[in-house]
Each structure stands twice: as structure tokens, then as C-alpha cells.
């Protein structure tokens, strides 16, 4: 077990955003969290990563680092690619004295090679395309060899080919570092190409849990509405 979420509850003021959800993700497994906008998907990632505190429940993770790939890459725009990727190794208290500059150069080159972007160490994020920025953010996320990787809408805003490339990297990283991964998405291609299991959130609750094939079978009124992108069904868009 790498991540276990038990009876998690999160409220913002009086509003319940995450309402008593539980799930597990094993090492080397990719869980996709799907649902319409505002269903609480990204909040789950922020709770697991510790960016925001939860009100009730428990999150148990294995020893080791948690990495996160943000929706809009969140690269440090005042730093070049080398400084972005080596950031944690240079600035983290427990890591900063472990590596020489030459070792950092080697590690950054390896990570860039893993995401197919060799030789761009001196470029700044503004000089890269959206897809390249996303791949650099992958390289930055895995630099500390995390055992948990969280992806927040990794293919949002990308063209179909870039999306396929990113989806391939998600699967490749799963094999490379055997991490437990959670992918928040509402893109069908990302779900079918990357996920081992899927959970669907609506109104802060889990309304479906199963494999991507089961999601596509539309046995459940929620999955049926999601897959067909219908306005008719149990899920109503909130104003």
C-alpha cells in the first residue's frame, strides 16, 4: 500500500467539499479520479500532498516523497530548466549538501532524457511550449525519486498529440519508479490510456469505483452521464 485515504472530510467554511471518501492506491498502480468541474478532484490531491489540511479522516502514505505535477506546470518562471529540475536537490535542507554541481548536471540530464527533452537546461519556461513545460514539470517532480506522484489534469489544454505523449510518460514513469500515482482528469483518453482503476466524484462523494472498462460500460447512471457528457442524469452542474 502506498496511499490510503480513510473517511476523508474537507469543509470550506460551512460547505462540505469532500464528504467521507475512502480509497487505496498501491505501488505501481495508477488511479484516475474523474468527475465534473467542482466535484472536489483537485482538492483531494491538495489534501494528500499536504497543501491544505483536512477536517476529518486519515491519509496514510508510505515513507518517502510525494510529488505533484500541476495543471499549468507551475514551473518557476524566474529560474531556467536546470534550476527548476534541481530545485529540491539544491534547496531542501536534507538534500542540499549531498550533491555537487556536476552531479546535479548529470541528474538533470537523466531526468530530461527520461521525458525526451535533452539539452534544454539553459532555457527558461517562457521559451518552452505548453507540452514541453508539462514534461519539464514531470522531470522536476521525479527528481527526488518519489514513491507517490499526483497529477492534476496533466493533459488539460494540450493538443491530442501532446496529450498522448504525456499519457505515455505517465505510464512510463509508473514502470520506471514503481510509484503509486493518482491522476485527476476528465479527459477520456487519459483515463483509458493510463488508469488501472477509476473513481468518480460527485458532490464530494465517490459515486463510482472500478476499472476503465467498467466506466465505459456505463452500468451506473453517473458513469453513463459522464461518458456520454449528457446534461440529463443524476449529476447537475452547479451555478
Amino acid at each position, binding site marked *: 500500500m502506498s496511499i490510503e485515504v480513510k473517511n476523508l472530510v474537507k469543509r470550506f467554511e460551512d460547505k462540505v467539499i469532500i464528504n467521507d471518501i475512502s480509497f487505496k492506491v498501491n505501488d505501481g498502480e495508477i488511479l484516475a479520479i474523474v468527475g465534473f468541474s467542482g466535484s472536489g478532484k483537485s482538492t483531494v490531491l491538495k489534501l494528500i500532498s499536504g497543501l491544505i489540511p483536512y477536517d476529518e479522516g486519515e491519509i496514510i502514505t508510505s515513507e518517502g516523497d510525494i510529488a*505533484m505535477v500541476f495543471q499549468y506546470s507551475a514551473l518557476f518562471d524566474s529560474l531556467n530548466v536546470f534550476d527548476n529540475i534541481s530545485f529540491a536537490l539544491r534547496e531542501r535542507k536534507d538534500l542540499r549538501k549531498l550533491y555537487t554541481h556536476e552531479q546535479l548536471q548529470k541528474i538533470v540530464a537523466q531526468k530530461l532524457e527520461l521525458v525526451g527533452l535533452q539539452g534544454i537546461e539553459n532555457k527558461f519556461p517562457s521559451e518552452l511550449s505548453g507540452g514541453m513545460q508539462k514534461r519539464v514539470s514531470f522531470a522536476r517532480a521525479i527528481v527526488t525519486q518519489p514513491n507517490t506522484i499526483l497529477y492534476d489534469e496533466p493533459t488539460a489544454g494540450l493538443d491530442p498529440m501532446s496529450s498522448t505523449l504525456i499519457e505515455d510518460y505517465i505510464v512510463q514513469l509508473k514502470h520506471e519508479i514503481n510509484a503509486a500515482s493518482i491522476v485527476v482528469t476528465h479527459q477520456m483518453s487519459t483515463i483509458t490510456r493510463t488508469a488501472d482503476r477509476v473513481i468518480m466524484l460527485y458532490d464530494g462523494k465517490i459515486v463510482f469505483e472500478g476499472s476503465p472498462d467498467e466506466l465505459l460500460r456505463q452500468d451506473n447512471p453517473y458513469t453513463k452521464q459522464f461518458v456520454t457528457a449528457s446534461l440529463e442524469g443524476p449529476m447537475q452542474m452547479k451555478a
Partner: protein
Amino acid sequence: MITFAQYLRKSATYKIFSTLSKELMHFTLTIGQIAQMGIRMTERIFRDGIDIKELFAQCERFGISSLPITLSIVGMTSIIVSSQVANEMVKQGGSGLIGMLMTILTVREVGVIMSGFALISMIGSSLASELATMRVTEQIDAIDVLGVDSVGYLFTPRVLSGIFMMPIVVIIASVFGVILGGVASNIFSGLSYRAYFTSVWLGLYMKDLWVCISKAAVFGGTIALISCTFGYFAKGGAKGVGLATTKAVVWSFISIVIWDMIFAMLFFF
């Protein structure tokens, strides 16, 4: 039929007190937030140390890049003051005291407060918008997720550079202001440079210099801490960045005027 409580809620008095209490609550929370960030930063300095390279980068930004605008503002203020005062002083037979007056005024008040205003508009606003942009683009979240303490990483070099660099900026700006005061007195009132610069030292004591330097350090730290705090807690998109910057500038202005009053009461009454 409406109850007394409902009636009360609709009254103008209730609405005024309700709004005032909300504003007071917000004001108190903001002060608490600024103090909390100051304490967190200090704790991180003792725990994790200081990134010297980043500190120097921020010192360059705080000191060197802000110097032209600071010198311009302090210099022009000195010219304005001396052009108005020198003529009258000469007429009243006090020409031998113009240098002293300009020096006291510049060292005790004009140099430090005008430099403070210049640094708020140039550096404070830039710090707030920089951190606010990092917040709304999730860069601060990324720092935290990567296991680096964002308060220590972002606040420490910026606030320390404010504390270290503002006294230097103020000293340079004050010397520049006193010199320009002499030039302006010479041009507008025909006062000789010798008469002006002989009296410069008359009313200046070591206490003035120490108070000036201490005040500058406090102003610099306050401007940086307030600006970083508002940027750090920014919410929303571009609008949030703008709001955080505006609040940082307004709070910094008010804070340094309050600090100035405290220093005046502590050391000159």
C-alpha cells in the same frame, strides 16, 4: 410581524456596527497574519540558516536598483524645502543655520521617510506582485510540495535584504539630499557653500545617525515583510495579484508612518 432581532438587523445602526466590526476583525487578522509570517521566518532562519546567494540577489534588487528613484525623490524634496526655507532664513538673518536645518530635517525625517515611500512604490509593490503571481500560478504550492519551506525560501532573503539595504540607501540618499539642499540654497538665495556646509554639523548628533539607521532598518524590514505577506496570501487570478499589490502598498505606507511616529515619540520628545 417582525421580531425585535429582525428589526434590529435592518436598522442603520446595526449595519454600521456590523460593517465596522467586520473591518476591525479583518484588520486584526491581517496584523496577526503579518506577525505570524515574521515569527515563522525568524524560526526558519534559526532552523535552516540563510541562503547567502539569494540574499545578495535580493540586496542588489533592494539597494542598487532602487537607488536612482530614491535619490531623485529625496534630492527633489531637499531642493523644494531649501528653496522655500533658505530665502526666509536669509531675510531673518539666519543664513548661518540653513545647513543645520536642512541636515536635521533630512537625517531625521526627509531622507528616511521619502526613501521609504520610494522603496514601497518600487520594491514593495514588486515583491507583492511577484509573490502573488507565484501564488496564483501554483509556484508556491510547487515549492511546498517539493519539500522546500516556502516561507523560509521566499521571505528570509527578501526581508533581510530590506533590513540590511534600507539603511545604506537612506545614508546615501540623505547625504545626497543635504548636498542638493546646499546647491539649491546657493542658487535660490545666494547662500555661499562655505556658510551652508559649515553649519551642516551644528545640529547633528550621533543619536540622530543611530536613530536614522535603526529607523531605516525597521522600515526596510516592515516594507518587505508586509509586501511578501500580502503577496503570499493572494487569492484569485490577475485581480487577486492587483488587490494584493494595492493592499501591500497601502499597509506599508501606513505602517512606516506609524513607525515614524513611534520613533519620534521614543527618541525626540
